[in-house]
């Protein structure tokens, strides 16, 4: 049975299912409920996070399991790490991924390293939910897509769901995974509707999804950029080029095989990533595929990314900042010879 739901509702659904299934699952973060100890509020009508994603969860589970924290990211993230190590399965919300600056240590040096440093004797079944993405005119400190920083760090798993269906299944996998996982929710996707399975289901990590089959070009789109890739593919199709579009779904672990197999078929790869271009997920995938599928490549691997610049506020600048179908088509044009695509 499937049901139409927004991305935001799918997250809410996943969290409720997890909390019903296992009383060790708690939700912690800034205003994840909202209005703590406000007399007249009685949990109803509480915010449920800055975008209302977790609305209603405090009504069902109460404030012992849905914890509003002070604005103290290092404090509550560190708390979530050791709550995980001592028997809970916290879902810790880092409101915007940009705020990792206040709690990187807890994620990078504690959560990610406990299992290894302690010789396998500690487990940190922690899920961090965080918001990323440009496109909302939220400017330089609220629009970043910092998944590369986390993919760099061994010990973490990194999830970049692009659809309501995926976010529900991947979030449930994350919550019941025994390693620390960070899930990136693109703020511009919250309102997106799609089919979502009813009840409890999981989607395994490290399994990419082929969103569209094709033989002439492989496009990997990270997070919401998979839609930019699909739009480009539609336009390319009109010119007779069939692009295969892949959503990696998780960056760590990365499903190298699906991407490489596709490239073996198409001979061409474009990676679409709205994050900063240097030491990025785009360069990562390019390097891996460039190594392992070298003999199959008919053209250089192209990356369509943000420029090496902070995210600008002004709407027209932000629009220019982002990957676009046209930029993908331009990249493809240079791969197949400039003349092919001058008119698109």
């Amino acid at each position, binding site marked *: 049975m499937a049901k139409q739901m927004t991305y935001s509702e799918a997250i809410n659904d996943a969290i409720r299912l997890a909390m019903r299934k296992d009383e060790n699952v708690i939700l912690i973060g800034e205003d994840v409920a909202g209005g703590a100890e406000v007399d007249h509020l009685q949990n109803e009508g509480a915010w449920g996070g800055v975008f209302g994603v977790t609305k209603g969860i405090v009504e069902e589970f109460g404030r012992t399991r849905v914890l509003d924290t*002070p604005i103290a990211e*290092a404090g509550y993230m560190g708390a979530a790490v050791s709550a995980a190590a001592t028997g809970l399965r916290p879902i810790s919300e880092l409101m915007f991924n940009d705020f990792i600056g*206040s709690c990187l240590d807890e994620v990078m040096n504690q959560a990610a390293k406990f299992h290894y440093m302690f010789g396998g004797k500690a487990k940190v079944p922690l899920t961090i939910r965080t918001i990323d993405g440009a496109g909302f005119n939220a*400017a*330089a400190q609220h629009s970043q897509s910092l998944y590369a920083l986390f993919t760099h760090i061994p010990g973490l798993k990194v999830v970049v769901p692009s659809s309501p269906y995926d976010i529900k299944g991947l979030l449930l996998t994350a919550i019941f995974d025994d390693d620390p996982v960070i899930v990136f929710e693109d703020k511009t996707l919250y309102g997106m509707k799609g089919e979502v399975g009813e009840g409890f289901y999981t989607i395994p990590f490290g399994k990419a999804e082929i969103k569209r089959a094709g033989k002439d070009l492989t496009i990997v789109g990270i997070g919401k950029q998979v839609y930019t890739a699909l739009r480009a593919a539609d336009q390319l199709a009109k010119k007779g080029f069939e692009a295969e579009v892949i959503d990696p779904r998780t960056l760590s672990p990365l499903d190298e095989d699906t991407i490489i197999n596709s490239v073996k078929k198409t001979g061409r790869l474009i990676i679409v990533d709205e994050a900063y271009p240097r030491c990025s997920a785009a360069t990562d995938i390019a390097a891996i595929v460039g190594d392992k599928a070298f003999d199959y490549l008919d053209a250089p691997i192209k990356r369509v990314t943000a420029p090496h610049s902070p995210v*600008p*506020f002004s709407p*027209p600048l932000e629009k*220019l900042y982002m990957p676009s179908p046209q930029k993908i088509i331009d990249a493809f044009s240079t791969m197949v010879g400039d003349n092919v695509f001058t008119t698109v």
Partner: protein
Amino acid sequence: MQAGTKAGTKASVGDMTVEKAKWIYKKMQEIRQFENTVHGIFEKGEIPGFVHLYAGEEAVAVGVCAHLTDSDNITSTHRGHGHCIAKGCDIDGMMAEIFGRSTGLCKGKGGSMHIADVGKGMLGANGIVGAGLPLSIGAGLTAKVKKTDHVAVCFFGDGASNHGTFHESVNMAAIWKLPVIFVCENNGFGEASPFDYAAACDRVSDFAKAYKIAGETVDARNLQDVYEAAGKAVQRARKGEGPTILECLTYRDYGHFEGDTQTYKDKDVQEHALQENDPILRFQNYAKTNEWLSEEQMKAIDAEVKTEIEHAVKFAEESPFPEPSQLTTDVYVSY
């Protein structure tokens, strides 16, 4: 207090000259009208991004900045419009910035949450809660190393007082006796979380004692109280006597950000805040009762400000968006 013969002619009340009082009244009006205007335009959907309004808190920014010059620095928050105006930023440039235009104070690259004017000693609104606290230390440090008598003021919220940077910064200011005034704008909430819930202390200024620095809490619905306490704190700082925590009890008239339903707010408190507790109204009454600024004088200022703000909106609306070439300039001074 000097006696005056008729309304609007007193030379000063307390330490405050009529000149200063006019400046203060005008700045408060500028902030209020600026924010009300932005609120209205935002509702119509013409302003992009996240916007946090300062209306209701005017007495804090104005009462403090009344003691500062362009050489003194302030650090600000996500709710920065009031600090900008009080510190003398150009209102046209601010409005254009909020509209994302190339004529904005930051060429449209920053937006509401990042308005800055370093030349005016305004080190930037800041989207990161708590970030302004360490930044104020640096400005204080520059003053100390360069042996000037400039001060640094750190505006931060009650919510920010729970962030680690509060502790780190106040401690550093205290051990180095830096000329920093930590102005906590305690409006009772950090987003939808009450201060009483999120902070263990009764008052943010309660920490001053442990750090062995000056600390005080004032009712920031009264401009005069803020003005007086800030004056003393700035003076101490200029004389090398170290930092102060000045907690200002205030209220934000609008939601946390534009679009907030504010279900967590108490209706009664809100009503009082918007009526008898309104800092501008109180200042008006005070000025009148003390025969200090006349009703006419204030009305004239109101009208002047209205024109200014209308001009700013027009300026912003008529300004062009940044050129595409602007996308990757200003990333580095040189690269």
